[in-house]
């Protein structure tokens, strides 16, 4: 058996793999075009920032106070009052989806204000829960501000007992793009590391080239290594490209160090490549490999890693599952290195987890890659 590592064979396989990467348009498509698409989608398309909500306003009181509050709503930067009139009329607008909420300033509002209280009614479209709760909260905030300002105007010295001074650290404007773009770089590395790698070995099985290669003295370790090294580098190139775009085009701050980013990415690629190798060795079929890679690699990265949805707000059993998703340990690192800075006390434990997963996947991959057919 000549399974010992031989640099010449390894070099020859490396040259072969690199030529294939450069010459196969589908590889470059997956390594560069798909990541761009993803980056632009998350950079521009997906946005959790609240837009101006379209609402209706039903003013049923003609007191000066009621008109003043209505004016506040109309001039608010959070609301777009598109309709005024009776509630019955507005509700049909809401059913049609043209407005997302109704603010009712009831008859007798002016009198209540004069007595020191004042109720308004906020009706929202519960079929869109996010928007509904935004409208509810913003309407309440707007009313409180209005009441405070009014009190101040009158010179009534009754300031609110507690004032909240909110500061949003790291992302003062609460721009979702700031955490989505670094997260999507994680998705990009999953695509190149897991999806592409799983495809290239399955492709060799399908085309019968692996059969010819396995009949030569090449060692299985050499074979696996030549699949790892080029795609590791390719993934890093892809990552760098996306990071540069994130900073220049999307204006995401980069407060950490490039070295930290490189180390973080490299530790993540260890399990990502291992998973890809394992999938292709186990399936030996490009179609199945791509499906498995999408379902077990990319989808968990998108849904269960905390990239889009906060893990803390998931049901407990789902939270438990997220511990099995390697990218869960990458997302906080990526977000931190971009918008907060280098924090090795956060990076290191996560890296340990990633390396642990890497060893597991590589062990499984090596076990599944046998110099045997059938």
């Amino acid at each position: 058996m000549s399974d010992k590592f031989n640099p010449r064979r390894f070099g020859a396989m490396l040259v072969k793999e690199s030529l294939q990467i450069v010459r196969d348009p589908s590889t470059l498509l997956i390594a560069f075009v798909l990541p761009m698409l993803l980056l632009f989608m998350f950079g521009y398309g997906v946005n959790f920032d609240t837009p101006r909500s379209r609402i209706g306003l039903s003013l049923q009181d003609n007191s000066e106070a009621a008109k003043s509050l209505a004016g506040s709503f109309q001039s608010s930067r959070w609301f777009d009052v598109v309709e005024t009139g009776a509630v019955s009329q507005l509700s049909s607008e809401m059913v049609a989806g043209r407005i997302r909420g109704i603010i009712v300033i009831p008859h007798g509002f002016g009198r209540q204000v004069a007595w020191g209280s004042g109720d308004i009614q906020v009706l929202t479209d519960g079929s869109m829960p996010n928007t509904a709760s935004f409208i509810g909260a913003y309407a309440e905030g707007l009313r409180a501000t209005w009441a405070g300002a009014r009190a101040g105007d009158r010179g009534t010295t009754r300031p609110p007992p507690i004032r909240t001074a909110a500061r949003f650290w790291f992302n003062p404007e609460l721009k979702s793009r700031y955490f989505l773009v670094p997260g999507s770089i994680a998705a990009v590395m999953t695509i190149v590391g897991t999806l592409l790698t799983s495809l290239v070995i399955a492709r060799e099985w399908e085309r019968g080239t692996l059969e010819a290669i396995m009949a030569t003295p090449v060692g299985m370790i050499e074979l696996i290594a030549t699949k790892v090294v080029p795609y590791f580098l390719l993934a890093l190139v892809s990552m760098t490209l996306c990071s540069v775009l994130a900073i220049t085009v999307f204006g995401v701050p980069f407060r950490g160090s490039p070295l930290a980013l490189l180390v973080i990415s490299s530790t993540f690629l260890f399990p990502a490549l291992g998973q890809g190798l394992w999938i292709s060795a186990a399936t030996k079929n490009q179609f199945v490999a791509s499906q498995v890679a999408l379902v077990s690699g990319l989808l968990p990265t998108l849904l269960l890693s905390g990239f889009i949805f906060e893990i803390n707000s998931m049901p407990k059993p789902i939270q438990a599952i997220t511990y099995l998703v390697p990218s869960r340990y990458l997302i906080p690192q990526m977000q931190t290195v971009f918008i907060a800075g280098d924090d090795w006390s956060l990076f290191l434990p996560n890296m340990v987890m990633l390396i642990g997963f890497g060893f597991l996947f590589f062990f499984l991959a090596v076990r599944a890659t046998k110099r045997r057919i059938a």
Partner: protein
Amino acid sequence: MADAVASVHGLTKRFSGQEKAALDKISMDIEPGKMTGLVGPDGAGKTTLIRILAGLIDPDAGEATVFGRAATATDRSMIGYMPQRFGLYEDLSVIENLRLYADLRGLPPADRQASFDRLLDFTDLKRFTDRLAGKLSGGMKQKLGLACAMVRAPKLLLLDEPSVGVDPLSRRELWQMVKDLAGDGIGVLWSTAYLDEAEKCDTVTLLSEGKGLYAGPPQALTDKICNRVLRLAVPSEGRRVILQRALDDPAIIDGTVQGDALRLMLKANTAPPTPQSLGLKSGSLFETVQPRFEDAFIDLLGGGPSGTSQLAEHYRKIAATDAPAIVADGLSRRFGDFTAADLVSFSVPRGQIFGLLGPNGAGKSTTFKMLCGLLTPSEGRGSVAGFDLHSAKADARQSLGYMAQKFSLYGDLSVRQNLNFFAGAYGLKNGDAREAIERSIEIFHLHRYLKENASTMPLGFKQRLALACAVLHQPPVLFLDEPTSGVDPIVRREFWTHINGLVEKGVTVLVTTHFMDEAEYCDRATLIYRARQIATGTPDELKALAGKADAKMEDAFIALIKASNLQREAA
């Protein structure tokens, strides 16, 4: 006996989920300097045996030894292995493929240039060193595959069906190349489904359904039947009827049409029937001819089927007309810059067999698909059963039965479900459909597979089912694309018995094949090479073009290919 470079002993392999063993107690030796043939139809176990020798499959029982050690633990750098699909990287150029395999097999860098030069000269690939392997023709790919397997002179060369589907000229060149190499003391294992290649080997192992039927020199096998193969000149009118009578005679166990003659094999120790009993004039004479390996194989399997086709017996009579049943008039098809078929023209009268012959990729299937209405011609016209392909496509299609190349039925449906589906697709009414299906099951012996998925059947039964589905609606015209590719000679005979029978009922048959000798069964045939028709005529006319007496169809094709290549180079 010289020391064998590789040998197997009592080798048995059974794949999970399969009833039959893929290999059943096979023993053979591969000796240095000799061509060892591994011969058998598809599914016989050839690939499994070669993979075991290459150390890629573990046997269940028995041993495989290469260079005195277990095949899985031997020195792989001394084995040259060419798998069925050549193992080439299509994104790499000719020279890059060679370099890769040179490094993997540990060819010393000092010897590299000499080895490359020799192999590139040998394979005539010097002009194409920078061309991507994916852009080479089938014949060139195969030569490059061989060069990669040989880049470091091996002691054992394993070739898995190296010659399948390529043109006969390339096939012959390849054979010569390997033969010369074997002269250097290499042990060569050449696997093939072409039985004529077996005759040329030094020693042969004949496999059928995993069992070893014969091992030894091919000559010894054909010698056993030396006086039993006869040739009988017959008038070309009615030769199929005479063949049928001959095959129904108990003294004759096999027979085929060979142009204007019949080739018949007698049962052992039996006198031939009188020509009169076959309906011939008393002057006709039986003439003893050299037996072929295929004859010997059929004899080992116990003889071919009888001459009467049950399928034809129950087929409707197709009314005679003067109009040709199939017409191709200047059919061309281009895909971008590539011309797949160039001005193909022929006309087939009702009740005849017309053959399209040529290597894979020559344009046979393209021509076929245009006539079936599956592909719109770039130029030219065609008609089937009098229906123009352009203006009456649906009628043309309804009047033909089509058996596609490879297995193209629904593998995940049972045999009965496939039959039901095709009966419905051809618009057979309930009663007719039921009758047609029951008859097909009877004729093609499909009972035992009725409830099984079609994909799990042996190849011979798949082909039978495909033919059954194509003729359910009793079409006047039948298109068969490589119907006998890879099946054993018994199934091949059975197919031709059906085809001959149907033709006698007035059915017109268009058949493609890359087995040159099958052209002998046709009334007329056209040779297609690189998208063009290079010759058309009766089998005897075509053979006469080879310019020598007693030529085989393959000789004719090779002569024509050479002429065509010269012409092209001159142009």
